[in-house]
């Protein structure tokens, strides 16, 4: 039986903490994947996060980390968390590059281990986000 979740200020705050952790862990995973390659990741400027549920439950705006992937001291890919409360997903991170735009969508249930899928520009046919799919994207 599906459990009922009470949405209140505490719940919203808990989900924001979880989202920030998932994003940060994700950057750490990428950092690990890039070790020994020509690329490196640098956590960049912070983005303001203030979504509708936060406003509804009087939760203060907060900041969330972005990250950039560099090659030869030039940014080749920017990772920008787009939002936590997405229809049918548990958060989305946009991947922007000069060669094309992609998005990472977490299909896991709330507070569960993330299951990231990578979508290309037409937002269809997502593939599991793995070291291999990530390097395929970088080497395009």
């Amino acid at each position: 039986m599906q459990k009922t979740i009470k949405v209140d200020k505490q719940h919203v705050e808990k989900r924001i903490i979880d989202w920030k952790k998932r994003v940060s862990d994700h950057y750490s995973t990428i950092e690990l994947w890039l070790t020994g390659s020509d690329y490196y990741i640098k956590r960049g400027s912070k983005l303001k996060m203030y979504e509708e549920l936060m406003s509804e439950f009087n939760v203060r705006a907060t900041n969330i980390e972005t990250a950039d992937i560099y090659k030869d001291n030039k940014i080749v890919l920017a990772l920008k968390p787009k939002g936590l409360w997405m229809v049918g997903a548990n958060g989305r991170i946009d991947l922007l590059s000069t060669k094309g735009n992609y998005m990472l969508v977490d299909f896991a249930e709330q507070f569960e281990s993330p299951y990231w899928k990578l979508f290309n520009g037409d937002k269809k046919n997502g593939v599991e986000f793995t070291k291999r799919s990530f390097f395929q994207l970088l080497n395009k």
Partner: protein
Amino acid sequence: MNIFDELGKIYNEIDNKYASIEVQARLRGHHKKEAEYSRKRQLNDQAYFLFMFTRFEGRVRDISDSLINSKVTNLVDWKINRAWDIINSRYAKVRNYIVNRSEASIKCLFFTKLPLRITNSA
């Protein structure tokens, strides 16, 4: 190409165009411009979602209308027919609320009136 494919194609074209400018602004360190294009993409997301949702809402409305009408018209046993009559009048109130709400949202967003079909009044 059906309307959903067409809308999806236009949405993607706009999103990719702005995303490309957004990343260029980030590379150059133009943070204000980057935020501006990010905001435009967000509005495009919302407009697309609303557009698709109103289409979906319209489809649900049409199917339920046709089901209720067929039950009201074709059922001869008055005991069963009466139940469908009650649904019909209650449903019309709820449905018109939804239609009016959607129409108001669309007007705000696009500053234009879309042809929404309203058949019954509450």
